[in-house]
């Protein structure tokens, strides 16, 4: 059923703006499958979901022309409340889509609006909770749920209203890897078992790829670049030279292949691409491992280690420890005399960080990462053991001195903005410096260029994109002159393009001697950039060393850590080509493939 949902010649301009979001956009989506909506950032993907749900133009006003047909019925003039029993919308931010206090009230809210009889609501609530896997949480408060549970609740709300079409706006953007997997599994179940149709805007495609049935790709000008079955679209995005430079997100393996095949294509590669493009079929996309293996085998494989762990030299500095913790324990005090001795969150933690190192602190939620940060930044006092910074005990260092050496970049970068203008924000960091006015201006201008913020000099920091906000906050920290930067979940709510840019900025800082500590659960980040990984599990450090060493061995499932996508890709390739090495870093894989096709000599041995 291809014409389940179709948009015809949609044009829309927001009320107070002049640039249209879309101009004569026409596309269609398939029923009973997962539809994926892709496109560069800012091209109006979220807005398209709002449009389909009726929020545009009724709640978000503007001038709208065109038509939307759902199952043959025109819904363009229908108000969102009239569509609620057919279309459910799940937003990106788990926190701000609920308006009641308890889980069961939230589930009832939609049904109340639709005038469902109160007696019938109980059964529907239980059914929806069971479908999403939140049974038993009926009486909980919404605020006590985790991010993943909140998104499941949002889906359950749509299910209580019997929605057949679920629109999802980057539902996993603010979740960790485990929650993300659970949501994707839920979506698959909903399509296969409940015959729902899903329209998804999403960047994290690695686990999703085998289950997407139909794809629409938007371009920068507000029109459609590509649409069709998942198989056809992904084939084209990966193998058609026309899309070699497309900024659209692809799963990691396809990105690797695209980079390899289009950088310096020879005849064999061109033939391979042609071959792939000529096969047209419906349904999900599967990587042509067999054909790929044959292509690679046709080249002479360079002799190399079977497990490629890392390519950069360890910064085996003999620099003295900058930050040291010995026997660090922390116990939250008991709430009252009945709760016993309180919760021990950190148990005898030992580690040391040298100046100029890039450290990653990882661990599942609740392992103690946040507590450690709070202790380091003197939000929590009363730790047991000792923490020394440049030899001085943490509790003895005056707070302002501490903050002038160590900067913290929050998960939400907006928390640190103190002015309403980007330039002023940067100048603020220089308040205490002894530079002259013109010197300050120069320094600020230099940083604005370095951090790609030219277009926003006088705008409010709150109007920047997520990536720009993060870069701005790093720039501010730099101007204050802090030599250690701690970043709390820098990938939160940000796409991989911006993450890459941020990381390369950090790398250039690191080469100037800044120590970098990243608290994250994004293992890709850890394996690509960190010198050392401190893995926390239930308050204890279970691993302290190079990330490569950890991934090279079998992982303990309790740690809730998984291999980066390129590793899994290598695993799949091995099934077809036993000599294919296992890669931990994308760059290594690409350079291996390049050296296979004779483009460059293998850089390491």
């Amino acid at each position, binding site marked *: 059923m291809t014409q389940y949902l179709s948009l015809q010649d949609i044009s829309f301009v927001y009320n107070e703006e002049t640039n249209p979001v879309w101009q004569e956009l026409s596309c269609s989506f398939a029923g009973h499958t997962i539809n994926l909506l892709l496109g560069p950032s800012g091209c109006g993907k979220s807005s398209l979901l*709002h449009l389909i*749900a*009726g*929020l545009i133009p009724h*709640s*978000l006003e503007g001038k709208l022309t065109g038509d939307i047909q759902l199952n043959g019925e025109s819904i363009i003039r229908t*108000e*969102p*409340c*009239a569509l*609620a*029993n057919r279309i*459910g*919308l799940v*937003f990106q*931010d788990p*926190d*701000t*889509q*609920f*308006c*009641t*206090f*308890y889980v*069961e*009230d939230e589930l*009832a*809210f*939609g049904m*109340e*609006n*639709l*005038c*469902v*009889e*109160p007696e019938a*609501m109980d059964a529907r609530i239980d059914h929806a909770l069971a479908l999403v896997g939140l049974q038993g949480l009926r009486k909980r408060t*919404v605020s006590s749920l985790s991010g993943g549970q909140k998104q499941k609740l949002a889906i359950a*709300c749509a299910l209580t*209203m019997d929605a057949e079409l679920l629109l999802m706006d980057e539902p996993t953007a603010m979740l960790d890897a485990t929650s993300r997997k659970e949501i994707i599994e839920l979506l698959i179940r909903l399509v296969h078992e409940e015959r729902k149709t899903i329209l998804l805007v999403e960047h994290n495609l690695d686990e999703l790829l085998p289950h997407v049935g139909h794809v629409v790709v938007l371009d920068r000008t507000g029109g459609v670049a590509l649409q069709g079955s998942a198989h056809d679209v992904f084939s084209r995005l990966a193998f058609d030279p026309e899309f070699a430079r497309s900024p659209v997100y692809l799963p990691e393996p396809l990105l690797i292949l695209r980079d390899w095949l289009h950088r310096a294509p020879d005849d064999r590669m061109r033939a391979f691409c042609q071959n792939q493009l000529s096969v047209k079929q419906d349904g999900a996309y599967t990587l042509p491992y067999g054909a790929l293996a044959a292509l690679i085998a046709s080249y002479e494989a360079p002799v190399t280690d079977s497990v490629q762990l890392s390519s950069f030299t360890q910064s085996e500095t003999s620099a003295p420890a900058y930050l040291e913790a010995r026997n660090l324990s922390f116990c939250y005090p008991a709430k009252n005399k*009945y709760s016993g001795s309180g919760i021990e969150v950190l148990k005898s933690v030992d580690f040391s960080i040298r100046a100029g190192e890039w450290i990653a602190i990882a661990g599942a939620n609740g392992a103690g990462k946040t507590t450690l940060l709070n202790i380091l*930044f003197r*939000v929590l006092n009363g730790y047991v053991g000792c923490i020394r910074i440049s030899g001085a005990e943490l509790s003895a260092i005056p707070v*302002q001195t501490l*903050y*002038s050496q160590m900067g*913290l970049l*929050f998960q*939400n970068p*907006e*928390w*640190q903005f*103190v002015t*309403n203008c980007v330039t002023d924000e940067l100048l*603020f*960091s220089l308040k*205490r410096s002894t530079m002259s006015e013109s010197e300050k201006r120069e320094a600020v201008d230099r940083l604005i260029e370095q951090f790609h913020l030219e277009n926003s000099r006088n705008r409010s920091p*709150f109007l920047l994109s997520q990536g720009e906000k993060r870069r701005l906050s790093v720039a*501010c920290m730099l101007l*204050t002159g802090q030599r250690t930067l701690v970043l709390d979940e820098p990938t939160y709510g940000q796409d991989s393009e911006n993450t890459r840019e941020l990381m390369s900025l950090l790398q250039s800082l690191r080469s100037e001697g800044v120590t970098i500590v990243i608290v994250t659960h994004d293992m890709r980040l850890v394996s690509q950039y960190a010198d050392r990984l401190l893995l926390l599990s239930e308050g204890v450090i279970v691993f302290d060393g190079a990330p490569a060493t950890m991934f090279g061995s079998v992982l303990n499932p309790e740690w809730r850590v998984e291999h980066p996508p390129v590793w899994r890709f290598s695993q799949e390739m091995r099934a077809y080509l036993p000599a294919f090495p296992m890669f931990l870093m994308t760059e290594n894989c690409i350079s291996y493939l390049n050296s296979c096709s004779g483009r460059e000599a293998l850089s390491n041995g």
Partner: protein
Amino acid sequence: MDKNAYVRTPYLSTLNPVVKLLCVVLVTVVVSVTSVPALPLCMVAATFFLTVFCGGISAASLLKRMLPFLGVSLSFVVFMLLLKGLEQAGSDVQILMFGYTRTALQTILALGVRILAISLATLSFVITTNPNDLVLSLILQLRVPVVHGYAALAAYRFLPTLKDEAKGIRLAQEIRGIEWNKGLINRMLSPFRLMMPMLTLAARKGERVALAMDSRGLGASRTRTFYRRTTITRRDITFLILVVAFCILLILVLARFGLFVYGSALEAGAV
């Protein structure tokens, strides 16, 4: 989860919030029309014991929560004494270098106890009422529009988030070099530094919640069913009648003993 360790919900918590609100308003009015400390004092005692015995809170905890109110009450009395004393209008009682008439002193004390009575009644209300139920009863009993009610509920739901946000923003600003507690000026300005970022984030949250509410069918029909309801039962009416009766009784009894004077005694000319 010690809070849920009660075997039964305390009596006051089972009452309809709007009815309780009415009672608090009643108490406020009754306590404000007299200028003799006797009535407010009785009211404070009555409210205190009612809350302890029927509200599910221990006397010690209640006293602890009342401390800030006592402080405010006291400072208010002291201040009014100062202001009145500067007028040097009377000489019945001498405190330090100020002279007061008997009635003036009495009135000022009454004012202090009055503030305490009002605060205590409100505190009692807050302790025994679930805000969720309050909003529901406002919507159902007082015909507050659904959107406004749920908007208020959403705002209430965000309170813990807002508190965390306030703490986080404060820390972030301190790390950037703003010293929050150093010196008087900084202390005065600090809440305002919070204001702009928090208000911006609040407006953004509001927009998103509104979109979510719209997408869940808000406004689909004029009427609307309710999963949970609050109703006014016989129990509520009985309670209301009891409270009204108590107030009337109190006034009558005190009037008999000359301890109740309507209005400000000073207006009656007894400066």
